[in-house]
């Protein structure tokens, strides 16, 4: 009846042909599937052409996300790769490199921006071989060059072996900041492991002031392996001496001193106090309001509300700390806008937070929509 598969005369059957496919084919299919997930996960309802800006009360506000991390999986140290892999959902954690390549590429980041309606973004270099990894100034410059109208670059430098390498590193930093699109400096004392109050590193702030390059600094703890959680590396209170002694340097305190280990507000009040006291201090509320870091959804609301209460809205510069995963950039923008709504921000205040304050600090035009 079905001669191909079985015979009723009792003779045996060897079975059909085996299905075989190479690892490469499977991996390609997997990456296509992930790219599709990236698109679908980031797509807004309606899936229409990219329209920039975020709509609040009928008004479309331009958005600049000053804090994004491109990179290469191979430039993340093994312990951190293992840590990240454990946090990737299954089955993507079986191919973390493939996932990362898609998300961290200039195309992947641009796709995230498109889906979030974000006009422009800052891309961060970092030299943190013990913890977060390395994204060189050259990599950032190359990424910025792919989309110079949308990407800005923040340069960084190696702080290890500072006693012998200080002059060379400062020269490299200056050269990096001379490249097109490189507008600021990124430092992360906790990841790079140097004290916030060590005067040996103040030459960085002096150079930044000379070049008119604002400095973004990671404040607060971090769950990345190899990070120092010591207060002198994480608590922005230890920056006060540097801030006070360098009035021409702009310090942008990233993450508002958030305690990412215990998922608590951390040094928010210190950040606010510094902003109230010193005109060269700005505040950036990235990452602390993500679903991972703020599962109850209360900390970002509290932080945005406190900053408005304290009268430092003109110091808030929006950033997300993306791309992290498909849809994160849009999701973080949505959560921030929701937090501002909930805490009574006016349209003009939201406009300032989302793009205006960045434009003022970096002496750039607000994006047109």
């Amino acid at each position, binding site marked *: 009846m079905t001669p191909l598969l079985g015979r009723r005369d009792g003779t045996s059957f060897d079975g059909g042909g085996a299905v075989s496919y190479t690892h490469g084919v499977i991996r390609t299919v997997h990456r296509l599937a992930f790219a599709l997930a990236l698109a679908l996960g980031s797509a807004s309802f309606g899936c229409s052409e990219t329209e920039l800006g975020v709509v609040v009360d009928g008004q479309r506000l331009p958005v600049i996300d000053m804090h994004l991390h491109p990179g290469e999986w191979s430039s993340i140290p093994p312990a951190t790769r293992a840590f990240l892999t454990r946090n990737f959902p299954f089955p993507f954690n079986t191919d973390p490199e493939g996932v990362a390549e898609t998300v961290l590429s200039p195309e992947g980041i641009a796709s995230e921006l498109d889906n979030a309606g974000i006009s422009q973004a800052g891309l961060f270099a970092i030299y943190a071989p013990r913890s977060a990894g*390395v994204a060189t100034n050259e990599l950032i410059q190359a990424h910025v060059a792919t989309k110079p109208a949308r990407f800005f670059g923040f340069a960084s430098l190696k702080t290890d072996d500072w006693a012998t390498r200080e002059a060379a590193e400062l020269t490299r930093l200056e050269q990096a900041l001379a490249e097109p699109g490189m507008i600021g400096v990124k430092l992360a004392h906790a990841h790079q492991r*140097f004290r916030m109050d060590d005067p040996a590193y103040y030459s960085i702030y002096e150079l930044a002031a000379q070049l008119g390059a604002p400095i973004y600094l990671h404040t607060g703890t971090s769950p990345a392996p190899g990070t120092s959680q*010591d*207060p*002198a590396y994480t*608590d922005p209170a230890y920056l006060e001496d540097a801030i006070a002694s360098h009035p021409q340097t702009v310090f942008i305190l990233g993450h508002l001193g958030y305690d990412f280990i215990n998922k608590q507000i951390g040094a928010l009040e210190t950040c606010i106090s510094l902003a109230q006291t010193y005109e060269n201090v700005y505040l950036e509320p990235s990452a602390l309001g993500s679903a991972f870091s703020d599962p109850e959804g209360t900390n970002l609301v509290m932080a945005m509300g406190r900053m408005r209460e304290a009268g430092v809205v003109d110091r808030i510069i929006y950033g997300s700390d993306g791309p992290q995963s498909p849809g994160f950039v849009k999701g973080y923008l949505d959560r921030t806008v929701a937090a501002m709504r909930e805490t009574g921000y006016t349209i003009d205040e939201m406009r300032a937070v989302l793009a205006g304050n960045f434009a003022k600090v970096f002496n750039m035009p607000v994006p047109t929509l």
Partner: protein
Amino acid sequence: MTRSIGLSCWVALALGCVNEDLRFYEVELSGTITTADPTLDGQGEVHLELHHERVGLGEFEHPFGLIESWTLATGEREFTGTGLVPTDNGAVGLVVYAWLDLDGDGVLCSVDGDRSEPAGFVVLDGYPAHSLEFVLTLSETCKGPEGL
């Protein structure tokens, strides 16, 4: 129980069942900590850390990598302890770093505390060896290991 697990895993090892394969080198440390300022003798707790001298390869290479830490009793300046040094991470050399906690808050030169706490480090000559001695003088104020 241990023997039977060991036997079965020799078999399994032949089939490749080792997952984490950790290797350590045991070092018995003994040393004396002094302060450049003799008036600090007998004061405060010494926080002592054993570090790799350098860790990592290529773009990941960096100085210092914390292995283990100890806290001596208040006023104590003689140290003995055992460190288990990981040997499968491309690290070289050993360094002892220490600082004196004069105000007892557990933080070197905390922003609200004593801002005169001294620190210092010494490279342990002779590593690899299972027994190492050192003398460490705390002479730099408010310096983390990277600042020395």
